Every structure is written in structure tokens, then in C-alpha cells.
């Protein structure tokens, strides 16, 4: 392959306009994005979502009181909204998990969430393998915002259990809710504690891709800043505070001052919004598709190859963790290769059988065939 440039600089071939062609199609098609929010009640999830996307998704929501909550189990709720800005449509689907962490006994309360995520993968796998692939709806969860309480001392056992259950299946972004309850120093300490705990428990949150060397300095600086502020300490607000004289800001008014949501010194809301929508939306979708979904698909197909392997898979998942990166096969590497080899052999045997069948069919057909088929 040789690299060639045009004969003369002023005579362009014209394919530099290609991204615009792609552009046009994307604008027509629009984008879709599925976001999941999880965490205990009362951490400001709904308010944050409303402020992030400037919608009223939770407008008619009624907060249940304590008696209703004791009997409530975890449910999965989906809400959709279409946001249009500058001619571009984004179909945002929000998956909420009300009831998480609310009961007295929260054991296994994350299982419905895990099941939901896998069901979306399965649906997509089915659609992708089907015959009519024209309009596949992508309902896979692209990102999960997990809310951590600012009042604790880092991650609690429930947080750890939930994160460990979902971190290999969805992009997790940890967020500290209601961060206006903390002073700056307390925020730093809490963030560091959470980061240390995540490392200790080997939880893989969403990794920001590295910046290219040819990106400009401002972008690199912003990227580093964003990476450094995980988990994001956020404050959400649905109200706009209009103090006499100063410009209106979105914030929470206290008697001792006003917390401005979009002020980078007050909280990380802007960073979160920039990351989620402006710079990493596409990357989140790609990681979901290329890594997490492919991992699910590989596991699914391998278990179909050898039905017995499914039992082995569930047993070894409990006993040890694989050392390789995502996508993780459920079995250690050596076994996986053996599986693949066995599957290949099976395929070969089936192919030979089919060839014999086809040869027989062709012999019987060859007599009747005269004209060109088509």
C-alpha cells in the first residue's frame, strides 16, 4: 500500500468532505442514548437528571412515604424523552431503579438490574442475528450513573456489591450526590477514599480514552481535569435563582449563600455534563458495543457451543476471577481455547455432512437443469 498525495495542491479530489456526508446521515437518523441511574433514594438522582438534560422527566413524580417503601421491591422503570438542539435529535432513554437500597434487607437487590442489562444485550443479539436487520432498536444500557451518599465514609458494602455485579456489563460512572453537604476538603478526602476503595475491590469503572498527542492543549487539560475529578461530586437543581443585580443562575438558595450548579468551583456538574454529552457520548456507546456487548455475545455463543460448559462457567465465576481484560471469558483462558477448538471441530464435521447432502442433491438436480438461473 502506498501513500499518495494529489498531483497538485490546488486540485483536490474532494473526499475531504466525507465527514460531512456522514454528518448528514447522522443528523437525519438522530442519536439514541440509554442512561441508567442507580443509588439509594434521596440522593438527588431525579433532580440531577432534570438539570443535566434540561427536561422535566420527573415532573409528575410523587415521592412515596415510608410506609409505601417498606413493601416496595426494586423495579426498573424506563422513561424516554427526545431532545433537539441545533437540528440534532437525541432520543434519550432513562432507566431508573426506584426501590434500590430501600428495604431493610437489601440482599441481591441488584439482581433485577443485572438481569435487565443482560436482557437488553440478548435482545440486541437476537435482532442482530435475525433475518431482518433493517431497523434494529438499540436498547442496551450505554452508561450507568451510580450515586454514592455524601454522608458516608466512602463506599458502603451495598455499593460495592452493586458495582461488582454490574461493572463488567455496563459503563459505570460513580457520582457523589448532594455534594453541597460537603466542604471542599471533605469532598477531596471522600473522593480519594472512594478511588482507593474502587482500586482495592478491583471495580472497573468507565475509563476515559487517552488524548492523542495532536489534540490542543486546552482539550488535554480539560481531559486531565475530568479524569482527576472522578467520582464527580454533583449538585442538581431545578430552580433558577434570580438575585437582584446578578445574572440568573441555576442553583440552590440557602440562607448562607447560593450553590451554583454550573459553577466549576462549587461542584463537578459541568464536568459531568461535558463528559456525558459533549465529549464522550459516542465513546460510551462504542465501548458498550465493541467491548461489553461483544463480551456478552462471545460468552453466550461459547455456552451454546458446549451446553455442559454453562455449568462450569457459573461455578468458576464464584470461585475465581479471570486475569484478562474485558471481555472476560467465564472460564480461564486455556479452557476457552479448548472450547473454541472443539467447536471448530464440530463445525467441520457438520460441514462435511452438509457437503455430502448437497452433492447428493446436486446430482439429482443436474438432470433437470438447462437454462441459466437468475
Amino acid at each position, binding site marked *: 500500500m502506498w501513500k499518495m498525495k494529489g498531483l497538485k495542491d490546488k486540485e483536490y479530489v474532494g473526499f475531504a468532505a466525507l465527514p460531512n456526508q456522514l*454528518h448528514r446521515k447522522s443528523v437525519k437518523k438522530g442519536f439514541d442514548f440509554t442512561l441508567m441511574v442507580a443509588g439509594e433514594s434521596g440522593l438527588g438522582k431525579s433532580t440531577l437528571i432534570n438539570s443535566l438534560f434540561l427536561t422535566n422527566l420527573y415532573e409528575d413524580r410523587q415521592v412515596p412515604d415510608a410506609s409505601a417503601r417498606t413493601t416496595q421491591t426494586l423495579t426498573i422503570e424506563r422513561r*424516554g424523552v427526545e431532545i433537539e438542539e441545533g437540528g440534532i435529535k437525541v432520543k434519550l432513554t432513562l432507566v431508573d431503579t426506584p426501590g434500590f437500597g430501600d428495604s431493610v434487607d437489601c440482599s441481591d437487590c441488584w439482581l433485577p438490574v443485572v438481569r435487565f442489562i443482560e436482557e437488553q444485550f440478548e435482545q440486541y443479539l437476537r435482532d442482530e442475528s435475525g433475518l431482518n436487520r433493517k431497523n434494529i432498536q438499540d436498547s442496551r444500557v450505554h452508561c450507568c450513573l451510580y450515586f454514592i451518599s455524601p454522608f458516608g465514609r466512602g463506599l458502603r458494602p451495598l455499593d460495592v456489591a452493586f458495582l461488582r455485579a454490574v461493572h463488567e456489563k455496563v459503563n459505570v460512572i460513580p457520582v457523589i450526590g448532594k455534594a453541597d453537604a460537603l466542604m471542599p476538603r471533605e469532598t477531596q478526602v471522600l473522593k480519594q477514599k472512594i478511588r482507593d476503595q474502587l482500586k482495592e475491590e478491583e471495580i472497573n469503572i468507565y475509563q476515559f480514552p487517552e488524548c492523542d498527542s495532536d489534540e490542543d492543549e486546552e482539550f488535554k487539560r480539560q481531559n486531565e481535569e475530568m479524569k482527576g475529578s472522578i467520582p464527580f461530586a454533583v449538585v442538581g437543581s431545578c430552580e433558577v435563582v434570580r438575585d437582584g443585580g446578578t445574572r440568573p443562575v441555576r442553583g440552590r438558595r440557602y440562607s448562607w449563600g447560593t450553590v451554583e450548579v454550573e459553577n466549576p468551583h462549587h461542584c463537578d456538574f459541568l464536568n459531568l455534563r461535558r463528559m456525558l*454529552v459533549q465529549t464522550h457520548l459516542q465513546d460510551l456507546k462504542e465501548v458498550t458495543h465493541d467491548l461489553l456487548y461483544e463480551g456478552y455475545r462471545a460468552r453466550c455463543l461459547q455456552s451454546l457451543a458446549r451446553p455442559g460448559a454453562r455449568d462450569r462457567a457459573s461455578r468458576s465465576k464464584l470461585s475465581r476471577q479471570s486475569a484478562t481484560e474485558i471481555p472476560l471469558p467465564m472460564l480461564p483462558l486455556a479452557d476457552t481455547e479448548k472450547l473454541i477448538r472443539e467447536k471448530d471441530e464440530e463445525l467441520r464435521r457438520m460441514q462435511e455432512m452438509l457437503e455430502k447432502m448437497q452433492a447428493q442433491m446436486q446430482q439429482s438436480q443436474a438432470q433437470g437443469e438447462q437454462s441459466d438461473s437468475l
Partner: protein
Amino acid sequence: MDERRSLSPCSSRPSSPRTPPCEILGSVGIEAVLDQLRIKAMKTGFEFNIMVVGQSGLGKSTMVNTLFKSKVWQSSLPNLELPMPQTLELHSVTHVIEEKGLKLKLTVTDTPGFGDQINNDKCWDPILSYINQQYEQYLQEELLITRQRHIPDTRVHCCVYFVPPTGHCLRPLDIEFLRRLCRTVNVVPVIARADSLTIEERDAFRSRIQQNLKTHCIDVYPQKCFDEDVNDQLLNSKIREQIPFAVVGADREHLVNGRCVLGRKTKWGIIEVENMAHCEFLLLRDLLIRSHLQDLKDITHNVHYENYRVLRLNESHLLPRGPGWVNLAPASPGQLMSPGPGKVRKRANKDPREDEC
């Protein structure tokens, strides 16, 4: 103006405090998503595979050189020392062209020997077989358990068919070929070496060809049935009126009125390739590269490849065991249409890059 519309209602639950409605101030910043796409596209680059089909001497190689302004192939004068290929062969050449920071990986497949034999019956079979083989390769990659992140795309996105400038109408060979290929790949017919026809002859030839295509139900690119909306329809109808384009290719430059232009110099004048009054090369270039490149790829992927896939899956005789699992039967010879003499060879381009003016 921003619009927000709620699609689905939420469940109602017992008891009091309500979340207050959110006042809108500022914007979310969604336009940046397009920038993300653009940056990604610039990094990964694009791929485009084009096939040129036509009899020898119709200027296929020159046309490819002119289209991409590079010496994709070296063949200015007919190389009379080389023997005429006895059978149809397919040669593929791949180049990476760069323009304004954007990389395009271009693969051109040539078909020397097409239509040159005495008996040209079934000369389209090796071509069909090649095209289907690329689909098969892609399908096999797609069915693997552990797939590559980016499956290399060798499928033919566009087939440019060169019609000799007889001035009458489409020949039986042309009709047979076009009829078969239109169902498998995007075909763009062009009138080759149009400098042997006057403008009036060209228009008459063109309308006869259009009539021929209609009579035989040959659907060339851009196909009417894939127009998505009114804008597309308007744009594509204009193009459809002018198909097939009458083109002239040239890779030598000459001085005309102080400008250096690509053209063919004869005793009675210089035919400028990029002059709309002389020939319609610019229309072909704009169609293939500037406006419809992505569309060609999309239709290849969403329509032609899907048709092939459905055909293969239906032929597999075994029911799938679960989502994603397909026991694919090996492609039968009749299905790929590969008779004896067809050969496919990939050859790296060895010629030097000469500058000409």
C-alpha cells in the same frame, strides 16, 4: 429553539411531595456529538472499493487515475507488447490517499479480458463470484465468536460499467451484464471515450440507453426505491436524468488559455476533462466521491450485503440453536457462480510515481 417532548408517562404512586418542574436555562450541548463523530472519522479514515468493468481500450485505467488524481494505475498508451488476456482476470490494487488530513483507503478492481473473447457467454460469472466472495468473507467475520473491532471491508461498493460509444443503443452483452449485476452491487454505467460523439449524438445515445434500461428493468445507482426523503428524491432524480454520464479520461496536462488542464490533445482542439461543456467527468466525480460515497457504502451494507446474508442463512438447512448461533453451510458453487476460468489476483502497484505537466 429547544424542544423537549416526553415520550412515555411515568407510573403514579401514592402520597405527597412533588418534584418541581425544571426551568430551562442554557443548553445541554448536543451539537458537540457531531464533532465527536467527525474526530473519530478523521482518525480511522475511510475505505472505498470500486470496480471498473468494460472492454479493453475503453479508458478504464485512465479514468481511475483521473478520478483520484493519482497514478493508481500506469497505463497511458495501450501496452501492445503484453498479450491480450485469454481469460477474464480480476486485479485489485489498494492505495491510501490523503487529503486535508483525511485518509481514504481506496481499492480498485480491474477486469481485463471482459468482453474481449469471441464467445463472451457467462463472462460476468467471475465478476459475480468475486463480489459474492467478498460478501461471504464479511459474513464469516461477522459470525465469529470473537469478532474484530472493525471488520475489514473488502466488499465492492460501486461498479462502474463502461459502455462503448457506439451511438446506437446498449448491446446484448451490456444488457446481460447489467441485468445480473444490478441486483448484487451498485452499478454506475458511463459512456466511455465520449469524445468520439458530438453533443447531439451523446444526448440521443443517452436517451436510448435510458430507454433500454427501463425496458429491461435494470435499476442502476441511484436506485429509486432507496430514496429516503424528498430532498434525496430531488437530488437523485436530477442525477438519474443524466445517467449514463458521457466521460473522457486523461492523465496528461496541457496549457489552455494559460491554465494547466487535464485533457486530450488532438489536431482539431483540446478536450478538457474538467470542462462541463466538453464532457461530464465532473458529474461522475461528484457522484462517486463528493456527494454519494457514503451512500454507496450504506446501500452496499444495508441492502446488497443483507440480501446476500438472508440468502445464505436461509440456505443453511439447520435451525439456529440460539440467538447469534448459525451453522452456516459452505457456500455452494452454484450460489457463488464461479466457473472454471475465473481467477482473482491481488497485485501491489509497482510503478513509479511520475509527475506530469
